[in-house]
């Protein structure tokens, strides 16, 4: 891989979408690899809405490439990352 970073597609659902003010955006990673926790820190600095979306960290869940992920899950250029509250279907 090159060391210049790359784009990650970020999706938001439910009240995270409403707070972030968008359902989808593309973020350029500073390097080849990051983690969910580091990506949250990066995104929180984007806008007050983003900061509000991630303020209640215990209520934020994530998926990487459509698979549930934890704070230490790796994120790489080309991945699709989604953030959302605990699910309430059924």
């Amino acid at each position, binding site marked *: 891989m090159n060391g210049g970073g790359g784009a990650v597609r970020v*999706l938001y*659902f*439910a*009240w995270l979408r409403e707070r972030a003010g968008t359902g989808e955006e593309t973020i350029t990673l500073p390097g080849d690899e990051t983690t969910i926790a580091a990506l949250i820190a990066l995104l929180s600095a984007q806008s007050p809405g983003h900061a509000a979306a991630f303020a209640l960290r215990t209520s934020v869940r994530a*998926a990487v490439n*459509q*698979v*549930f992920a934890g704070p230490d899950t790796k994120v790489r250029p080309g991945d*699709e990352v*989604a953030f*959302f*509250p*605990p*699910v*309430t*279907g*059924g």
Partner: protein
Amino acid sequence: MARIRVQEADFDLGAETAALLAGRADIGGLGAFIGTVRGDVGGRALAALHLEHYPAMTEAAMAAIAAEAERRFALAGCTLIHRVGRLVPGAQIVLVLAASAHRQAALDASSFLIDWLKTDAPFWKREEFTDGESRWVEARDSDTAAKARWAG
């Protein structure tokens, strides 16, 4: 083997059950669960539930839940249908069917499937009240506890 669907349209319990049982003589029991929209939430009148989901992930997550049920129970077949969009009181939200040669497996699997759907499938509910207010439903500890019964 499982039938998985996410749709705005309503579903027909009789037709889904007939499709699961059609031509099968190896089934002795079928367990089912239907979730419906209640018109009252803690004394407040509900106008509708709005169901949002993560389209790219939803069906795969439901298929994984069905596969886990098939691994744990001797199933002859199962069906999972979840509606999305705006649903008014009385409307059907979710359908779970589990068929087996034996009744206990059918009943246990239908409980298992709805418990796991509640915690492992990417759906979110927003309540729209008749007074115009709207709020996202919070996940309940009781749902996590219900899933935890199936640990191991």
